[in-house]
């Protein structure tokens, strides 16, 4: 079996992470910002699986399971906060939520 060079996975993960950063900076809808955070977490997961495979260490995959757990918890709480925020302001635009500045 000819393995894929790890460089490709590094490039792919960096690209995915940058797309996530771009989405967080680019959009104003809070739901899409959450999705871009998920995208960044997945880029990190992919890189961790790649390194754990190439280093013969299954601990990386265990850490990916923990990251998935934390991501699931974060999405649940974040979407609950989002529903609450929508109930108060009737929008998901993050620029409306600048009241903490004053």
């Amino acid at each position, binding site marked *: 079996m000819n*393995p*894929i*060079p*790890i460089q490709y*996975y*590094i*490039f792919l993960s*960096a690209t*995915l*992470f*940058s*797309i996530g*950063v*771009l*989405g967080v*900076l*680019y*959009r*104003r*809808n809070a*739901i*899409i910002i959450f*999705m*871009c955070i*998920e*995208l960044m977490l*997945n880029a990190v*997961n992919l890189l961790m*699986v*790649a390194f*754990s*495979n*190439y*280093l*013969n260490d*299954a*601990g990386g*995959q*265990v850490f*990916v*399971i*923990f990251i*998935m*757990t*934390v*991501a*699931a*918890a*974060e999405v*649940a*709480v974040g*979407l*609950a*906060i*989002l*529903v*609450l925020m*929508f*109930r108060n302001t009737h929008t998901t*635009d993050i620029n409306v939520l600048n009241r903490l500045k004053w």
Partner: protein
Amino acid sequence: MVVFTKNPVFSVLYLIITFFSIAGHYVLLNAQFLAAVHVIVYAGAIMVLFLYVIMLLNQNQDTEPHKSNMVKFAAVICAGLFMVVLVGSLKGTDQLLQGHPSPDSGYVKNLGKILFTEFLLPFEVASVLLLAAMVGAVMLGKSEKQSPKA
């Protein structure tokens, strides 16, 4: 595609495609158990949650006021520079890696053995974290009218 689509529902669908391709990469990397877990957790649970919230909040049309062109341009520049920095800093890592991948490292047997011996305490802490997140989500999502009574 996830970023630039105007409609949030289509954005979620593109994100599901991305997650399935990442699961395919996991299979290529001998992590079959992680691929299955990834498909179940992300494409099954998290995306359903996203779609449900989008439908609940009635966001499935383009009502989003857009940022100014200056901010968009700055965002693109920042993300591009960030990617250049990441790739540049990770470029020299291939000399570090000499090991050959073993074909069975991602199976449930090996993974479970490590998870329940070496990483037992983080595993329990993760379960407590999930419980706390569940309680917190229910508390936050509860209707406001019942709270003064309690």
